[in-house]
């Protein structure tokens, strides 16, 4: 849909993503990132019109874990606040909607996840269909491997091509000081065949934050705002055997509704935790070889659960802020084998 009000990402911050941060609680990990985006805009917490966050109790192993992190945003006196029990990209969607209504002019969006306390491959099985799938405990790598084999069988890719995606991503991440894995990383042994360790994202802890602002407020807060021209999210059937795993019709539809296909883009930040998922998304989003895909290194370089999707929006926006991109798409996913997908189109004003 065409937004009724111009809304932009005006600031983005993220932690260094690390295998473990057990010397820090979630709020201790998150706070420096919140302060970073506030400092970048000169806003105080009391200036923010709406705050929305994304995280997951299953990562923390505790109910209502997000309430602890709220201490980091100065939630007293009471603020206008909401939370999504998923990636912060969806919190950004909610904040964008709130700004569209005109009830707020600025929004703080943040998300965080610590995978280090648990076994994230097993934790993620709890988001699966509880009747037919979860009792079998198929872990996240196994499900991605089924999708990778389907792509190989369809002739869409092969193992050397997947290794190429991994190598390119981590080479790009060499310029990203926040990345967990960068440079030359061995492709390694099979984790679940056909996926090798190199095809899979690092497991780690991290947080990210974004500030959104509407109209002239955005121009005041940022020299070159990253305007959100469209944003949409779509979901596919939860039963894996009903879906064509080699395609992502929900990504394509979300991109279409966000206006991604109206003009070419120069940058795509894709939330593809597995190499094979980049193959699916490039096809679904009709990305040519001239598009810079994941110049940040993407989720193969750092995949802090619940923040990695928001980081894709932030990285795409930051490239626009720096003048390195004029029109970018940012994608976030959730669930097994790209089940849920969000696509945003970001643009900088012509300079």
């Amino acid at each position, binding site marked *: 849909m065409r937004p009724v009000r111009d809304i932009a990402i005006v600031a983005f911050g993220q932690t260094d993503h690390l*295998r*473990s941060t*057990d*010397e*820090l*609680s*979630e*709020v*201790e990990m998150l*706070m420096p990132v*919140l*302060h970073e985006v506030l400092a970048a805009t000169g806003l105080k*917490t009391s200036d923010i019109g709406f705050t929305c966050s994304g995280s997951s109790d299953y990562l923390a*192993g505790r109910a209502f874990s997000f309430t*602890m992190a*709220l*201490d*980091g*945003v*100065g*939630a*007293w006196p009471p603020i206008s606040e909401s939370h999504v029990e998923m990636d912060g990209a969806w919190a950004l969607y909610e904040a964008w909607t709130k700004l569209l209504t005109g009830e707020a002019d600025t929004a703080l969006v943040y998300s965080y996840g610590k995978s*280090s*306390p*648990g*076994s994230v*491959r*097993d*934790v993620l*099985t*709890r988001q699966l269909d*509880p*009747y*037919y*799938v*979860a*009792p*079998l*405990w*198929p*872990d996240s790598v*196994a*499900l991605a*491997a*089924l*999708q*990778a*084999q*389907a792509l190989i*069988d369809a002739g869409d890719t092969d193992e050397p091509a997947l290794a190429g995606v991994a190598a390119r991503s981590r080479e790009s991440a060499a310029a990203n000081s926040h990345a967990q894995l960068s440079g030359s990383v061995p492709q390694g042994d099979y984790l*679940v*065949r*056909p*996926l090798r360790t190199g095809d899979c994202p690092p497991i780690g802890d991290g947080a990210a934050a974004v500030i959104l602002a509407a109209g002239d407020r955005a121009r005041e807060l940022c020299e070159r705002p990253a305007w959100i021209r469209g944003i949409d999210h779509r979901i596919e*059937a939860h*039963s*894996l*055997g*009903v879906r064509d*795993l080699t395609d992502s019709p929900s990504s394509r539809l979300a991109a279409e509704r966000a206006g991604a296909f109206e003009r070419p883009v120069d940058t795509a930040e894709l939330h593809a935790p597995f190499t094979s998922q980049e193959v699916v998304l490039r096809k679904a989003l009709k990305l040519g070889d001239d598009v810079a895909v994941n110049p940040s290194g993407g989720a193969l370089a750092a995949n802090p659960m619940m923040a990695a999707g928001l980081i894709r929006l932030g990285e795409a926006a930051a490239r626009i802020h720096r003048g390195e991109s004029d029109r970018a798409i940012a994608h976030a996913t959730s669930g097994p084998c790209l089940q849920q997908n969000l696509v945003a189109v970001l643009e900088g004003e012509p300079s």
Partner: protein
Amino acid sequence: MASAPSPEVLRAPLVVEFPFTRSLGPVQSAFLTGLRERTVLGVKATDGRTLVPPVEYDPVTADEIRDLVEIGTTGTVTTWAWNHEPRRGQPLDRPFAWVLVQLDGADTALLHALDVPGPDAVSTGMRVRIRWAAERVGAITDIACFEADEGAGSGESGPHTGEFSDPVTGIIAAARLDYTYAPGRAQTAYIKALSERKTVGERCPSCHKVYVPPRGACPTCGVATTERVEVGPRGTVTTYCIVNIKAKNLDIEVPYVYAHIALDGADLALHARIAGIPYDQVRMGLRVEPVWTEGARFPDHYRPTGEPDADYDTYKELV
């Protein structure tokens, strides 16, 4: 690779375990009861496809669907992945292939495990059959796994009423996740101080309030609290309640009093049990001190100090 654990970081195992009890809809009930009887049922979707495993609502139109069909127990692998290191809870405890299997007569695929000796023995398009579990209860695990099958399969399917005697109407989905909990910098300091029978809080550099227990951030100012402050040990009851119902596994006689206690020097009240005074004599403003028991990691309860009651004005901000 995890870095070497710092000796300063506290850690403890945290187990989250639930036996989720879930009720089944009519289609799910028929399917899982069918598995118990070695019968596989699918459901007709509005586009004519037979969905296996069956769902209650059409994945395309979201219409309610109820037309059940019985299908074969043999099928074809549509994709696979070799799992050389099975994890806890998975169908087989030796290396196996994850497979999506399109059973004969079905148009969609079912996720399960395939028992074959190695990755060279599995391929997309291979023929497989169900190996039933010896004991079946009406769950997806009534299919123990799949195994290789030489047959071509009949592809026959026919209508089924979905009616069985003693239908399964629910499942118990046991789930267990293991974590290693680390409380972070501020709470680590609090717990370490308790081991020396001291209570520490942290002061906000902005509003100067002292939070106990500290969580690392001031919820008013949104900034890190870093200045450590010892508080108590004495404090004032700011409010309380009388507990009349005995909690499970709790060895305390009812009625007893649970109270909010503002420790001297703290700007946030802790909660703890009050003893050493008849329950109906506990009051706001009562001055109390902690009572430690041998080997305990926190005060067992608080008891009156015998001081005069605190003036309301001294603690009204903390009620």
